């Protein structure tokens, strides 16, 4: 109930404030970056993986080592099944939340992948 009230209020504010915001939102599609990241995993392309990561996700990759991370994904056989939705992070207009279906064999899980604007594109920060 709280959320609904807040959402309604947010919508009201958005309507009331329907003016140009001067947003510098990147033109690239954050979902495309997620697809490219999983393609890089599948190809075993460490450089391409790194190029699509930033923030905490890149830090964790550096901590673990890219080869170890690739091995982890390979062993787990995680693959992209689909992308259901892209939302603006309510706390940060420069972030996007990509609702992603990831699977292995018959199993499928939905995870929320967080991306942040980086120049004209997006980088995955939380996965």
């Amino acid at each position, binding site marked *: 109930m709280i959320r609904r009230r807040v959402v309604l*209020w*947010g919508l009201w504010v958005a309507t009331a*404030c329907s003016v140009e915001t001067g947003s510098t939102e990147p033109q690239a599609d954050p979902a495309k970056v997620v697809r490219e990241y999983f393609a890089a995993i599948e190809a075993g392309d460490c450089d391409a993986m790194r190029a699509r990561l930033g923030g905490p996700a890149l830090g964790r990759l550096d901590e673990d080592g890219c080869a170890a991370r690739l091995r982890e994904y390979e062993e*787990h056989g995680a693959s992209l099944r689909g992308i259901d939705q892209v939302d603006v992070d309510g706390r*940060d207009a420069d972030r996007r939340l990509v609702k992603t279906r990831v699977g292995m064999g018959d199993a499928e*899980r939905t*995870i929320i992948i967080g991306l942040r604007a980086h120049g004209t594109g997006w980088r995955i920060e939380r*996965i």
Partner: protein
Amino acid sequence: MSWSSGRESSFGALFLVVPLALSLGCGADEPIDGDEPVALELDADVPLGLALEPDDDAVAGTFSDELHRLRFRSETTPEGFELELELNGMIISARLDEDGVLEYDGFASSNGEPTQMTDDDRAAIVALNRSIEALGTDVSEDLARLRRFTSVWSEFPDTLDMHHQVQVGFRGWNSLCGQYGQFVQGTHDDWSYSRGHDRTTYYALLSMDPSGPCSDGTYFWNNNTWQCFEPDHSKNIEYAYGSCFGRCGAGCGSDTQFTKDCLDHDSCVRFGHSTASFWCNDEFSSTTDDWLFAPSCL
């Protein structure tokens, strides 16, 4: 006291600043009626430390340290309970309703839009949890519930949707109190290795043994000695103990609920996966009713 009246009194300033600033900033002159949310200004007048405002069937208050500011409320309702935290521009709520549905949510406090758990959010929740732990065990049920909730949610993964429901009685929990002090098999399913696979399965001592000096605080029997480290799906590891293995919530604390789901979650995040990563999302989700319903073992 009903939750709504309580929210208006204690969370009365909850949504004050941001929408007001937005409405003023865009020149809107529409009236703000009393039903509209009012944003909380967490940067102002939140005293350092834990400040409590208890009453008969609720506890509300604030916590602040050098890095974090939080506001919280935990209330017993005729139907069950309602609980709410505000931190870092996010509201986290939990509610048990009259139909036995346990509902969680997490969203931006300024606009109600979805958001994602971050390292700093977990750190803020840990800080609040520790401040409640410092009060000891002789606290109200509302505060004890908040303590258990913050302990479990301090391990909330980055990639799990914060909005979800659990039908109480559907998922269930399996208390391990009868096996406290014994080695019990823990396992997890991380998509490549099934539950019960040698690389995801080992025995852990259910105990209140404290954390060791390594990152996960857990000792594993390796090369005929106990070593504090984090193995990565090693089929040579069969035994573990430490950091209150199997207890619901992060590491050690005053609550002593030991369940199969909490054991399996520990077995996942301490055996090659970080708390933040998505590999253990399922195991975490399975613990989201245990913290509320499982009995204390000690």
